[in-house]
């Protein structure tokens, strides 16, 4: 594949991959972008291995997830303190709800965040999410269910 064609692919998929990684890294944009770069580098190296069973975006998300797991092994995820929780208030109602959601999301486990993002925000089926995260289908379903329940409890007024 030519360099131009690959750059076009990166431009097309960067937002989804970076957004997914930002969720996983609990909003750490710099770390998420580093991991996204690594993701695309690995994708370029392994392009011949893409079998086309799922979409290219799903394949990229799978690589992004394994990159995130490697990073997590290096540095342990620190628990959020209450100060982080109370940070940033936005007076606009729609945006405030989104901020609240992101804050609550940050309190979930990485697996729950990933499963919810793939199944809800990206609209993947549980099966597709299981393929991307390389987890059993039942495990993904319970991550989604448990994550939803936790979010609901945290977002109660």
């Amino acid at each position, binding site marked *: 594949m030519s*360099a131009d064609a690959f*750059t076009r692919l990166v431009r097309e998929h*960067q937002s989804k991959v970076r957004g997914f990684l930002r*969720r996983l890294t609990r909003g750490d944009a710099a770390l998420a972008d580093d991991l996204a770069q690594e993701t695309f*580098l690995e994708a370029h190296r392994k392009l011949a291995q893409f079998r086309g069973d799922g979409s290219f975006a799903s394949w990229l998300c799978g690589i992004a997830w394994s990159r995130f797991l490697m990073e997590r092994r290096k540095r342990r995820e620190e628990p959020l303190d209450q100060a982080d929780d109370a940070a940033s208030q936005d007076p606009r109602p729609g945006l405030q709800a989104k901020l609240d959601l992101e804050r609550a999301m940050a309190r979930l486990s990485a697996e729950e965040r990933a499963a*919810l993002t793939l199944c809800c*925000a990206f609209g993947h089926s549980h099966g597709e999410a299981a393929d991307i995260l390389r987890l059993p289908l039942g495990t993904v379903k319970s991550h989604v269910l448990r994550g*939803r329940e936790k979010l609901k409890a945290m977002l109660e007024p």
Partner: protein
Amino acid sequence: MTDDELDTLLCAPLEELADDGFSVKVAARTERAAWWRERFALFAPVAAAAALAPFLPGEELTRAALRLSPELANSGAAAFGIGVLVLTLALEKRFREAQSAL
């Protein structure tokens, strides 16, 4: 919060992130990585051979080469084999170049 409200929030697409030079950075890194991979593929066998050279039985190899060289020089079959080998290597290089140009 109701289930519907939570669903609406959760299923809202993630914020669209502007490229802001991200793809250019990735392209530059990809090119650099490919350059290093090519150099590695080219020089790794040479480096391996250089590392092994001191352990090779030099005298025996020289004797064998001296014994074989007149035989090879006078052998049509050996010349044909070497010709085929050179042609194959040259064509493979051309084929790879054509493939990467596509």
